[in-house]
Each structure stands twice: as C-alpha cells, then as structure tokens.
C-alpha cells in the first residue's frame, strides 16, 4: 500500500481523504556506465549523474528491465542487485545493449485508490483527481518513468468511478495526460462526472459506497538528490467541481514512493558435528546399555567376563553442503592394557581383541552377527535414527548376519594400517541426521586383570 502523509485543506475540504498506491516502489530510470560487455549477465550502471536512478536500490530480483538505446530497448529480467552500482540479469546483454549511456528502465506501476467524503452537495458535478506530471504532453505520457512525477503511461489508464447511488449517476471515468496546471505544477487529470444533486457527507470509502480507482499510473523515478530509504513525496489533489468546472471543494494528499526494503542474509556453507553421551539403561540397537557414556569416553568400568557389556553414543551431522557429508570411524588400536600396543589382531592376554563375530567373519569391512557370549572381543553396531545412508544396522539379517540379532563390525584399526570406514553419510544437505553407535565388549576369560583403553575418532567431512 502507498502512504498518505497528510491532508491539507484548500477552499472547502473534502474529508476523510486518502490516496493509496497498490505498489509504492520507485521506478528505475538510469543509464549504463562504461565497462559493460555484450554476452555477459553483469550490468554496471552510471552512479554519478545524468539520470534519476543512481543506485540499484530501486531494483530487486525478478524485475523486468529494458536496456538499450531509446527506441530499441530490449527486455531483460533482473537476477541479483548487489552492489549499488551493479546488477545481474537472468540472461546476457545482447549486442548493442552494452554501450555507454544506454537507457536502463524498469517501471513500477500502481493502481491509485481514492477515498473521500463530500463536504457539499453539488448538482451535476464531478470529482477530479490531479496527479503531478511533466509539462510536456509527449514525455509525460510515454510510459517511461519521470523523476519525482507520475507518467501517464503510453495508453490511457482506466478510471473506475463509483457505482451509482442516490444523487450520483456517474458517467464513465476519463483520463487526460498533463491536462491541468496549478501554480506552475502540471497534473494528469482523472475525472468522474455525475448527474444528480449530490449530497453532503457522502462517503466514497469502499464501505458505504465505492471509491475511485485509477489503474496503471507509472510510479515516479527518484527525485534529484534522492536518499535511499527515504520516501519521495508528491501531492495528489482531489477536487469536487460544479458543472461549470469551478472548484468548490479541494483537498490535497501527499503520497510517498520508496524503494522496497531489501532483506539480505548470507548463509555460509558449513558442517557441524556433535557427539553426545547416552545414559545407562537406554534401549538402542536392540539392547539396553549398561553404562552412561559421555561425549569424550565410553567408560565400561569393571566389565563382566560372562555377559555382554553394552554402551552407546549419539552422533549428529548438520550441513548445507550441497553434496552432503560422510562420517568415518577409526580406532588407534585394539583395547590394550593401560593403552599398550596390540600389534595386528593380537590375541595376547593384555589385549581385548576386536571381535570376529559368531561366524568368525567379522572384520572392519565385513559385518557378522555377535549374539553368543562364547565369542569375545570388542565391536560396534549402528542404530539409525534418520541418517540418509548407513552401511549396516544392528538388525541387519542378511549375509553374515543372517539369523542374528546384533549385527556388528570391528572398528578399523589404525595400528593395523586399516583405513577408516564410513558409518553414515548423505549425498545431499542434512538437517541433524543422527545415529547411535553401540559399543559391545566382552573380554576373554584369560584376559589379564587391569584397565584397558583405546581411542576412537569419528571424522565428519563434506563431500566435494
């Protein structure tokens, strides 16, 4: 909606006067600076002089824009408008449309809605709306925006008068370009004449009776010295005339046009990765966890040698990287007594070796079910919440995991020169995709008493 700033009474006053613009944006009328190249999408405008528009602030994405020499302007669409001196097109500049001082025009048109209440009853009178215009009949009605003035448009706008009511039998509205001059200011004239006695206090407000609308006036280009973000205002005059064209009542209303508010936000590409502990007695991976984990450790504590010891952690990835992400896992070594080295697949009694599963087929590459406590070691499984892709899950029952309930894999062992394995991934953006990693340990009965330790690293990287 446009902006009515104030009412100023002249002779007698029409009351409750308002004029609104359906589109309050300034039109753009500028010119090309040097450096524009045919065949490219970038457009550089003149920001110093010659034309009303010296900034792309009056443009926005999707605007239609005409570029070229007068009389042979070609139509384009604005893609982006940053910085103030440049904008880009959705297509490329054609040959001949990249010359210095070529016109750059983007019109904003609006429907004017005029509401008022009569002050006097005038027999066979007319309502006249005067909109500021250029003096020249040709230039004021060529469809090209004018600085701080409304262009009539290359064809006459439609004036829609109110529906007939008692005392007012309206004729079809008329529009005349740059028809009236008052105190040195030229105005387009839009009229609604009526037959009848009229009435005092008749409200043409869109509620009691219809209001007057004028279609497709061309909004002004910026005034000289225009400040971006500050409205340029023009006075629109509403008059009530008698049948001799004498002005009986008149009120002027200031209407403002301004740039659209440009909201900009920069969203950088990023990837975030979170590791969270899971409380003891949590159901996940088809088991109930025995210990509470933290983000930094899976503290099994004093582990049983006759029953599985289970724990879990939650891993979460969020990224707006268009090609997605992958999370891999790698252990530095098998669980070693006080962190001591366990060379290869060591079965030394000072190591808790990586489990080989119930079918002796488990490795860091191959999953196998591990349901029997007769088989010892350390392994992990996955309980997928909403990750896009996982290599397997605890309830996988195909291949080596056929017939099992806890399908698991060894961690890839850096000490044994094994490469990190992907545990979840996505080929597109991800919003908090997460899995639970479930850890299971069961030492051999010959394992030496003591504290066993290793380090597991989870790595999240974007896909290039």
């Amino acid at each position, binding site marked *: 909606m446009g902006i009515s700033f104030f009412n100023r009474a002249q002779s007698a006053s029409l009351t409750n006067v308002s004029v609104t613009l359906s589109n309050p944006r300034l039109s753009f009328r500028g010119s090309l600076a040097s450096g524009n190249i045919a065949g490219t999408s970038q457009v550089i405008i003149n920001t110093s002089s010659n034309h009303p528009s010296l900034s792309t602030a009056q443009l926005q994405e999707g605007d239609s824009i005409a570029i070229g020499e007068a009389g042979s302007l070609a139509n384009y669409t604005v893609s982006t408008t940053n910085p103030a001196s440049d904008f880009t097109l959705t297509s490329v500049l054609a040959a001949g449309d990249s010359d210095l001082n070529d016109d750059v025009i983007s019109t904003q048109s609006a429907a004017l809605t005029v509401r008022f209440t009569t002050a006097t009853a005038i027999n066979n009178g007319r309502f006249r709306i005067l909109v500021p215009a250029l003096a020249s009949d040709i230039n004021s009605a060529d469809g090209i925006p004018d600085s701080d003035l409304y262009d009539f448009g290359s064809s006459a706008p439609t004036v829609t008068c109110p529906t007939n009511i008692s005392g007012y039998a309206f004729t079809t509205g008329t529009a005349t370009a740059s028809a009236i001059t008052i105190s040195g200011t030229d105005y387009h004239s839009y009229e609604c004449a009526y037959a009848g006695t009229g009435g005092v206090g008749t409200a043409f407000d869109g509620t009691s009776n219809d209001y007057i609308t004028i279609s497709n006036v061309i909004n002004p280009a910026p005034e000289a010295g225009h400040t971006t973000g500050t409205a340029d205002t023009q006075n629109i005059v509403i008059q009530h005339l008698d049948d001799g064209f004498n002005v009986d009542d008149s009120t002027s209303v200031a209407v403002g046009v301004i740039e659209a508010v440009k909201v900009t936000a920069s969203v*950088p*590409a*990023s*990837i*975030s*990765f*979170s*590791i*969270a*502990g899971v409380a003891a007695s949590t159901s996940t991976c088809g088991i109930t966890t025995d210990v*509470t*984990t*933290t*983000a*930094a*450790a*899976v*503290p*099994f*504590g*004093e*582990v049983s040698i006759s029953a599985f010891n289970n724990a879990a*952690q939650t891993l*979460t990835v*969020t*990224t707006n*990287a268009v*090609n997605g*992400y*992958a999370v*891999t896992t790698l*252990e530095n070594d098998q*669980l070693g007594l006080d962190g001591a080295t366990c060379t290869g697949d060591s079965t030394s009694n000072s190591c*808790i070796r990586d489990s080989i599963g119930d079918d002796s087929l488990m490795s860091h590459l191959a999953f196998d079910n591990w349901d029997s406590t007769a088989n010892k070691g*350390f392994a992990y499984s996955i309980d997928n919440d909403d990750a896009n892709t996982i290599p397997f899950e605890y309830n996988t029952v195909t291949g080596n995991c056929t017939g099992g309930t806890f399908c698991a894999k060894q961690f890839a062992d*850096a000490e044994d020169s094994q*490469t*990190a394995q*992907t545990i979840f*991934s996505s*080929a*597109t953006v991800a919003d908090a995709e997460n899995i639970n990693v479930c*850890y299971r*340990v069961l030492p051999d009965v010959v394992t030496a008493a003591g*504290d*066993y*330790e*290793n*380090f*597991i*690293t*989870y*790595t*999240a*990287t*974007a*896909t*290039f």
Partner: protein
Amino acid sequence: MLNKKIKKFGPNLFLASVCFFLSVSLGNAQASRINLSISPPVTYLSIKPGESKTYQIRAENLGDSTLEITPSLLDFEADNLTGQPVVKQTGTFKYIQINEGSSFFGESFNLEPKQKKTIPITIDIPRSEREEEYAMTIFFTFKNKIDEQQKETQAKVAGTIGSNLILIVTKNDLDRGNIIVKNIKSMPIIDSFMPIRFTAIAENIGKNATPASGSAKIYDWQNKEVAQFEVHPDMILADSSRQLRENEFLSREFRYKKPFLLGIYRITFELNKNSSLDSEIITLNKTIVALPLSIIILPLSGFILYSGYRLVLIKIKPR
C-alpha cells in the same frame, strides 16, 4: 550449642549441598555433548606460482562446554565414485600455514561455548612450483577441555571435522579439466515392461577439478530422442573418476520408464570436456534392446513344461 549451630546453619548447608550437587550434575550433563561447526566445508582455490593467498575457516562451538581444538592437515584422494574424500595418513603439502600469531597445525586452542573463531589459512606458493592440483583436508579435532581422567576400561572418543581444500596451482585461470565418459552400465537386454536403468562413470584426465556438465539422452530405433536427463554438476578432481548423477532427483541411477518399450534404444552421454565456454563435447553411447521377454518366456516355459510332462507320461505308460 551444637544443636543451635545446626539449626542456624543447617538450611544453609543443605542449600549449599544441593547447589553443589546440581552444579556437578550440570557440569557432567554439559560435558556429555560436544558440537563443533566448521565453515566452509569445501574450498576450491586457484593460485599462481609465486603468489600468496589467505582464506578463512570459521569454527563455532555450538555446545555448552569449552572445547579444546587441534587443527591438522592431511592429504586426501577421491573415492572415484561418490565424491567422498579418502583421507591419507600424511600431509605432504608444504606451502600452507595458519596465519595467526602462535597458532599452527598441531597446536591446540580453546573455544568457549557459543564462541566463534576465524582461522586465517595462508598459502604461499614458490615461483618454481609446477602447475598441479592438491587435495587436502584441514581437520579440527575437538574434545572437552577438561578431559575425564578415569582409570578403568574405556574407549576414549574424539570428534573431528574436516574442511576440504582443493588447491589448483596454475599459471593462468584456464580450466584445463578434461572429462571423459568412462563407461555406461546397463543391462544389454531388458524386458519391455521394465524401465531402462543405467549408471555412468566420468573420469577427469585433465589437470584440474572441473564440474560434470551435460546430459544423458535416450534415442529409440528411429533415432528419435525419447528422454533427456541433465547431469548434476558434481565436481570431478583431476586424475579421478566419479559416478554421474541425474540432476532432478540426484540419483546415481538414471531411469526411464514407459508402459511398454520395444526395440533398440541408444543411451548417449554428452558431457562438456570442462567449464570453458568453447568446451568440446565428449560423447559415449551404449545400445540396449527391449524385448517382451515376459510375454515370450511365459508361454514358452509353459510349452516346455507341458512337453516335458508329456514325455514323462509316455515313458511311464508305455503303450
């Protein structure tokens, strides 16, 4: 006297105990989740020999506890399929450093909760360096600053986020990527009621990473185009391969479904060699045949079964 003191200070002691218990519990709760964000996740940088460039990586602690973060640098190579980096255990690129006071790779820094830190990375290429592409990942290993020192059987866990850097050392900005379609995989003969399904691998035999661009088309036996798929502009690193994806659903499998397919169909991939405006177009074709196998095989198998049955009957009941 003691009773009086207990009466006087008892409530205060109780409150203090509760506060202490809550603070410890809260501390543990805070330590149970760590969350780090890195931006950008992938950077493509072009640099001339003898030139120096600095770009920035931003780290943000999204968690509620102070993180100890250690940056490191490792090489990676493409997995030749999905674009996931396969990280090597070595970082061989010498001309890169963290350009900030005392920070360098391997040196930890702390990041408070909800705090951001910008890490300037400077690449300084000697004039004598030859034109080549380097793929590396700058890793940020993060953990709670106060590590939980406990003596028991445990697996210690660390999180790491990588920011990939694909660095192209080039004397000019020309795209010297050279993409070829390595192969198209599909069934040579399909049933008329089944869709045409195919995948394709593209290889970049050029000197720098360049995006796959172009299309896959299917022509019928009259050489009339019946389907076209735009190829998703996935980046293919120099001397690596990548499975192509169709652009609409980002699927690695291209799929054309009609109620009934019949005859010879030609699958054609037309890819731009690189991203330059006058790029050559590289083409690879594969022909498949669609036959109404289900219509042919069903009666045929019925006939064979019936014939076999008849034979068995004849043998069992000799005249």
